[in-house]
């Protein structure tokens, strides 16, 4: 038996394992993965229980903390009858539309910018400082300026979200481009690829896993900017809904809105992970 048979750490089936061919790390019973999930579930249930109990015993005034049951009831009511002239679905639709329009804009601008930063020294010189300047500014700080420039309409809201998404998309793209193996590029060139073909057929696909990761981070940034974007002259949207509810101290709607945003963000994260598995199945395997 060659030494490599040991170093390759075969995924040994129990039936093939005998006393002489015990692999390096013996397969453990699959308890660990399950228990982590179980702990998470218990944690969430405990929090819910603590919330329900403190609301039930009126430890905190319902104005500050409505009970889970009240929030659920409100969810049903708002879903059916709406809140401030729009149903919950319409609020969700308005917010989702803004976030998605911003995602598209961020990809259309961020990916080429990231490519430029990763590929050319001039591109890096031009865009790197701009992004580093833009990245740490909180959206609420540039929101007024954008309203002055572009008015209070829909474009301003999308722009604010898109700006927040731009840096993560561009920087992840650039990181992906810089991580492309030299040998892969050289192999393509020696097979006759032009500069453009190298970018199109080697660099872009190589950077795709990184771009998708950037997209996930960008979506997170987008949701956190959403509420800020909907502060100004919105008539619909989850952020707007929470804002107006807060002004009238309708705390159950505020809490409900927060939970809806969290659920949607979680669902989107899940969907992107699924997309990653389909589009870049090789990620982490080469």
């Amino acid at each position: 038996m060659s030494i490599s048979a040991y170093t390759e750490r075969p995924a040994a089936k129990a039936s093939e394992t005998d006393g002489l061919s015990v692999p390096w790390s013996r397969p453990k019973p699959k308890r660990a993965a399950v228990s982590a999930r179980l702990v998470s579930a218990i944690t969430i249930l405990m929090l819910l229980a603590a919330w329900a109990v403190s609301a039930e015993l009126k430890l905190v005034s319902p104005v500050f903390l409505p009970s889970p049951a009240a929030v659920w009831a409100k969810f049903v009511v708002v879903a059916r009858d709406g809140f401030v002239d729009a149903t919950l679905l319409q609020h969700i639709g308005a917010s989702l539309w803004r976030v998605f329009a911003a995602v598209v804009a961020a990809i259309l601008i961020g990916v080429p910018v990231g490519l430029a930063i990763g590929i050319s020294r001039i591109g890096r010189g031009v865009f790197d400082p701009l992004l580093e300047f833009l990245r740490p500014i909180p959206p609420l700080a540039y929101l007024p300026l954008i309203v002055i420039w572009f008015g209070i309409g829909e474009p301003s809201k999308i722009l604010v979200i898109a700006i927040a998404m731009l840096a993560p998309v561009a920087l992840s793209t650039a990181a992906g481009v810089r991580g492309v193996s030299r040998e892969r590029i050289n192999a393509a060139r020696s097979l006759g690829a032009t500069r453009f073909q190298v970018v199109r057929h080697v660099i872009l696909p190589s950077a795709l896993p990184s771009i998708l990761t950037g997209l996930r981070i960008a979506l997170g940034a987008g949701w956190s900017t959403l509420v800020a974007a909907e502060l100004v002259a919105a008539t619909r949207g989850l952020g707007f809904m929470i804002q107006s509810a807060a002004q009238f101290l309708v705390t159950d709607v505020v809490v409900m809105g927060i939970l809806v945003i969290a659920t949607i963000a979680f669902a989107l994260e899940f969907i992107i992970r699924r997309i990653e598995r389909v589009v870049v199945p090789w990620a982490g395997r080469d």
Partner: protein
Amino acid sequence: MPHLVLDKVSVHYDGQPAPAVERVSIDIGKSDSGRGDFVVLVGRSGCGKTSLLNVAAGLVEPTRGQATIGGRPITAPGPDRAVVFQNDALFPWLTARENVAFALRLRGVNADKRTRRADELLSLVKLEGAGDKRIWELSGGMRQRVGLARALAAEPEFLLLDEPLGALDALTRERMQTTLLDLWAAAQVGVLMVTHGIEEALVLATRIIVLAPGPGHVVRSFETHFGRRYAAGEPIRSIKADPAFTTARAELTDAIFEGEAA
């Protein structure tokens, strides 16, 4: 009948105190009969083997001297000199077949023709039926076969092999040596190969060039004939068992380590 010629090539990398290679000349011919030279560069680490291969590939510009193919200076990589690297450098987002067809796709060959040619090449490297496999489903040896087929799809005049078998286990490497000889005969290309394997060099080469470091220069160059015996039908094991092979191996080892003790 193009020749790939390195003429008194020196390579001195920026920021390095000494040149990596100094005044090395290599001439790889390709005769009308189709049998090209199979030139193997051997030598200790740091003797500039890979630098020379990269000069031939057009990936490194010589500081002095000149590299030409068919009399034209080499200024950039090109499909007339397809390179196969130690780490296969395959594209994981493509299937094995699509990897092989890559050079054809770059040229705008239509999909039907591409598939047909790629399948031909895959069966040439004994991977028929593996066309739809993803790269990460293939073993190291299979990957190198895909890499070789991909290089041949470019219809090169020369194959440049940078330790193509270096990352493989001993048994796979032995099998790949015969594959290389078969390919070399079938594809009618000239080959420049870099290796650490002494036996490998003797089995494969028509000419072995021994380099020594400090800065890299040629210490010896000799013709061998063991590969021809394989082509004539003698099994590779019997060639390696021949006393002449053992003598040649000792001689080559001496040449590589000549002056090392001094």
